[in-house]
């Protein structure tokens, strides 16, 4: 087994546990924003897409990379945007209402 694989596996397992502990604590109230936020975070694959597209190794890899850049960046922008929009709607009864 390559050593890169093992170090990635360590990171994956630890991050999985961290994720499990954190997500368990998210109130069910916020499960929809949770999904859209993790989606936006997951869109970090855009960095891999930029590298593939920008290295310009073959025509095919560049085209595939550019499609991936557009698809993941739309998730990043849209995901953060809609998550914040949803969270702004969550208000307590005590807050003064805006006119």
């Amino acid at each position, binding site marked *: 087994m390559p050593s890169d694989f093992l170090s990635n596996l360590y990171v994956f397992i630890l991050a*999985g546990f961290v994720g499990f502990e954190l997500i368990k604590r998210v109130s*069910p109230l916020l*499960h929809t*924003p949770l999904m859209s936020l993790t989606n936006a975070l*997951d869109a970090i694959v855009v960095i891999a*897409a930029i590298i593939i597209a920008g290295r310009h190794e073959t025509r095919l890899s560049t085209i595939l990379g550019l499609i991936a850049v557009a698809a993941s960046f739309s998730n990043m922008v849209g995901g953060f945007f809609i998550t914040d929009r949803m969270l702004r709607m969550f208000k307590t009864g005590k807050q003064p209402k805006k006119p």
Partner: protein
Amino acid sequence: MNPALAQQLIDSAYIVATVFFILSIKWLSSPTTARRGVLVGEIAAALAVIATLSNPELTQYKWIIISLIIGAAVGIPLGMVQMTAVPQRTALSHAFGALSAAMIGIAEYYVGVGHLTRFGMGEIGLEVIIGSLTFTGSVIAAGKLQEILPQRPIVYKGQNIVSLSVLAGALLLAVALVVNPSNTILFPIMVVVALLFGVLLVTPIGGADMPTVISLLNSYAGFSAALLGFVLNSKVLVVAGALDGSSGFILSVIMCKAMNRSFTNVMFGAFGQVQTSSAAAEETRTVRSASAEEAAGILAAANKVAIVPGYGMAVAQAQHKVRELYDALTKRGVDVRFGIHPVAGRMPGHMNVLLAEADIPYDRLIEMDDMNSDLPQTDVALIIGANDVTNPAARSDTSSPIYGMPILDVDKARTVMVIKRSMNPGFAGIDNPLYYFDKTLMLFGDAKGFVGDIVRELSGTNSH
């Protein structure tokens, strides 16, 4: 700047981004800190993208910038959809995420072919299979949620065998590629077979199971990104993918528990199909109905009211009228709370967002278990557009298809009122004995119109 130093700076930026990602989810746990979570997530994403764009390996920028602009042009409108459309937007974003993971994996294969190790080929194969099936599966799910495709499960004889053979085919092709990574003919066939499996996976699943399916696809999309991190040896992708994957996984488990179903049952069970047998014989039982005026009188006389909303409320666009009802009753000193079943709506937490959008304070939105301990002391339970999640047969009738599913025990309240169009059984086609109880009053009509009538009655008596 020399390339080694540049690479170190980029890696440092990725480490900071990784820490911020974890903080982002940590702060999302409560509504008071959640927006801060979004902010650090945005900072992390911006940092990682800027660091990547400054990578000296990049030789062209023009098309990358154009693609980023296209991405933003697609993403912003998708971020502005109505709250009822959030489930299909989410399914579509799973599709986009999986698409980009698959595209990058495919590009890696063609760039590396000739000097790929068998191990590396195995990673790419698995990554591309999961990415591809998640892409088509999510597109189908989005189509069902948008009601472009039929909501009812589409089933045929021998379906599970066909679907599983297709998956086995994709995996076998991946194994063949591991044996000989340079067999460039097999690779595109593997991609096509995996895409086909995604279609077969989601097509037979009915609309009622969408909260589980959407969570499961979320989990697949996350894991395909994590696998891509393995392929590219990128820790930030591994972490982001693991967080997203475990989030989707936990949500799928919660959704399955809330419906008392197993994963296999959701994936292969085709729920909402064949169970109307016992209902027909009991059509003759009598129900009591009431007018808006009577309903308003009962609600006004109550101390504690529990409203149980279902997706039918959102379909009827009644949430703003429900908010008016909440205001009118609260003004009279009635304690009004909302009982939220975990599968209310079409994705996890959907009902909370729909009610929050209608300006109902989130401290009034009560989880099922907390609500259930309070229902015996509740005067009136008002059910709007919900059906199966209130069905007492789930507790008592072992022959019921929903037997064992946790429900909101609205029948424990002193009076039950159900707003419903007619006596037709609900989405899953299961009869609800609740409607025939002596304490139950049926309020026949459109949810929005009927709630509006009650509000009018309440304000009318107020002005006397």
